[in-house]
């Protein structure tokens, strides 16, 4: 087998989902293994090395969250993308909190699937680059998340400002997984963004469109217009000059519970 071919595992109890992912990926040179439930998935994981696992949440027997927990327990660090037809905010946030690297709500287009898989494979590559086999948290070190920040999975961060507003932006890991940015699409002022839902889109040079999931719910009171003209800003300094929005949070205390404090990354 070709060492450079990417291999992913798709776990879903719906045959049509599995089939469509297989069909779409085969064209892109990605090998797809499939499993119709979590037990089958575990058997395949045991015998194969996958760069990425894409799993549904609601499945008979073991669900997607339990699958992630089991992988953690077994020290299998293959990144997981969670996808579900029950695409609520709660599921999205929980997936990311539990360690999924992305949340892909069904139904998805081919572009959405590919951008997510692309990031997932890049993420796996990054991790392998730093720590080849089993290891602790990935240490990608040029611009770590500041300790006072909170993050939603490995995607976005939120910083509480003294005046009660919240600044939000994307993490360095996210930026590394998407490669060169071509264009950034932002929401308008006054628009409401909802935790776990798309709040901005980044188009990359290779033509992929990445959705940025908001780390917190609130109303946009300011946006970083500099990003539109100076894309490098976000890549060079994602935690400070590369912020995206300032929002007035609507339910700060509740939503903070589902974010991970960046200070825990240093332990």
């Amino acid at each position, binding site marked *: 087998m070709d060492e450079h071919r990417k291999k992913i595992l798709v776990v879903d109890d719906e045959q049509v*989902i599995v089939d*469509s992912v297989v069909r779409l990926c085969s*064209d892109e040179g990605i090998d797809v293994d499939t499993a119709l439930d979590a037990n089958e998935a575990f058997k395949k994981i045991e015998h194969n090395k996958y760069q990425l696992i894409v799993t549904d949440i609601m499945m008979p027997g073991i669900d997607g969250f339990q699958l992630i927990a089991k992988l953690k327990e077994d020290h299998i660090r293959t990144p997981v993308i969670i996808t579900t*037809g029950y695409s609520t905010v709660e599921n999205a946030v929980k997936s990311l909190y539990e360690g999924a690297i992305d949340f892909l709500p069904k*139904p998805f*287009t081919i572009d959405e699937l590919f951008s997510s898989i692309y990031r997932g494979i890049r993420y796996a590559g990054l991790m392998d680059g730093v720590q080849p086999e089993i290891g602790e948290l990935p240490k990608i070190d040029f611009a770590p998340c500041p300790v006072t920040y909170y993050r939603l999975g490995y995607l976005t961060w939120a910083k509480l400002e003294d005046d009660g507003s919240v600044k939000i932006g994307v993490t360095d890991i996210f930026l590394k997984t998407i490669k060169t940015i071509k264009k950034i699409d932002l929401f308008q*002022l*006054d628009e409401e963004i909802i935790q776990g839902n798309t709040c901005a889109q980044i188009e990359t040079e290779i033509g992929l469109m990445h959705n940025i999931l908001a780390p917190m719910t609130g109303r946009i009171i300011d946006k970083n217009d500099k990003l539109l003209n100076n894309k490098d800003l976000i890549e060079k300094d994602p935690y400070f000059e590369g912020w995206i929005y300032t929002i007035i949070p609507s339910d700060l205390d509740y939503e903070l519970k589902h974010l991970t404090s960046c200070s825990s990354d240093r332990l």
Partner: protein
Amino acid sequence: MKFFAHIGFKLIFIIAIAAAIIIGIFSYFNIQSQQKILQSEVERHLNQLSETVKNSTRYDMLSNRRLHISNIIQTIGQEECIHNVRIMNKEGVITYAADTSLIGEMVDKNAEACYVCHTANQPLARLDIKQRSRVYRLEPDSSRLMGLINPIYNEISCWEADCHVHPKEKTVLGVLDITISLEQIDQTIKKATINSIILTLVIIIVLSLITGYVVKILVDRPVKELVSATQNVAAGNLSYAIDDLGTDELGTLARSFNNMTQKLSEARLQLFQSDKMASLGRLAAGVAHEINNPLTGILTYSSFLLKRAEKHPEMKQDLEVIVRETKRSREIVKGLLDFARQSVPKKNESDLNEVIRRAVTVVENQLSIKKIELVELLEQNLPKVTIDANQIQQVFVNLMVNASQAIDDIGGKITLKTTLISLDPYGIKQIKGALCPKGHSLMDDDIKIDGMASIKVKAKAEGNEGFINIDPIYGRNRNHYGIHLKDKSIIDLSCPKCNISLVDKKKECPVCGAPVYSFEVPGKGTFEACVTKGGEWQHWEEVDKKGKQEYVEALISDTGCGIPKENLDKIFEPFFTTKGQKGTGLGLAVIWGILEKHDGTIKVDSKVGKGTTFTLRLPVQKV
């Protein structure tokens, strides 16, 4: 129900026993005293008779004409009511008697007639009439007799007469004893006793009938009505209302019952509503999950095909439609899921100025782009208001966004002003619920006055009949008249559901003297007002009592295009929009709902071409 368990029977039983005891005791004493009076009367007569006999025989006694005496005694003894007449000498030997066969017999001194005097060793010389009379029966079943002994005393003539029958030292020479039958008295008393028994029975029957009837009217019917109401409610018919049961305790119970069922039905409605939301949420979740999987199949394959159809423009177009519409379906399902998500309002004590400042930071940029000047006239040291700061902030943001949209590109001004005001409830306080005396709600959501549900009543005057919608603002009197009426005409107002009159003719309007109508405001006392058309007098005791209420008032004025008069009434209605496809028409309706939940008010004043002012009032809670 068993007859004995019936409250009517119990009452009748108690009343009958009470009547029997009372009349029994009364009759007993009455008959007793009657008997005493009759008996003493007879006694007196007997004594007179005895004296008469003694006197009429006196001369014959003194002259010792024994035959003469015997004749007199016998003649008297023939009298029907007289049982016996006897004269005994000192030794107890009967010397004269009406019944001649008794003459010569010896009377036992211990016998009843003699006992009174002869119990003591020394015979008594003088006795009063009571002690000398006695009542007895010869046989246990014979009629009663009354006897009276009359001692015959020694006199000078007795011992000085020639016959020298009696020695001088003797005091009593003999005794005259007359007995008469008491049969007549006994019969009279017996008759009286029977009469009182009959009277008692009659009274008991009459009382029972009256009690039974009264119980039927006052207790049975209302109780039956109440029982059928409870059964109706138990069966789930919460809209069942008991008809008027009067003003007594059962009437109060009925009203309280009606009130309870109404509250229950409201609570059930709310429960039903939240249940509906919950099941809608579950349904949405189920639908989302089930539909999203097949949609994924469609969307992935169609978007895949679309990618491969770059070189086939005609196919590409068709595929674009499929992808676009599938994405639309995705948004619809997502909308369903979002709808199932509900936000709970969280009220806290907040500074309204602070909330407004936060709202301003949200819109500031947008306003400066449109060259709109923002003027803040916020009063310092406002008392805090209990609000959901996020919701109220949303209100101000929306109002400011609306204001900025009303201002065209030349620019303009938005003024924000807050003040603390203290308002008399008169002309401010809204009536949010109204009940007729039978508990029917009078609120009418269909006809709104200034956006607030009005109070609908049936009106009759001058032969016309129709409906009047009363202004729900206390003291404002912007009523809608559904019938043609002259000013000052007296209107007969009633409940549109049960026709019960709301007019209290005993009360007079202190302004014009016309009658007054009233209705209950649940939890907030009674509302009263003058019945005449144009009569402005209104009185709401419970609210007046509380006195002035403090409000924080906020005004948002713009110099925009203004709102045409015909739209002013409708702007708070859901789905009313002037923004065409761009707006949902829910913005101001949501704002209205938010203020409603805060016990606040919002009103609008506008002049086309000059601008619009929204006035918001939030009550300050008294500590």
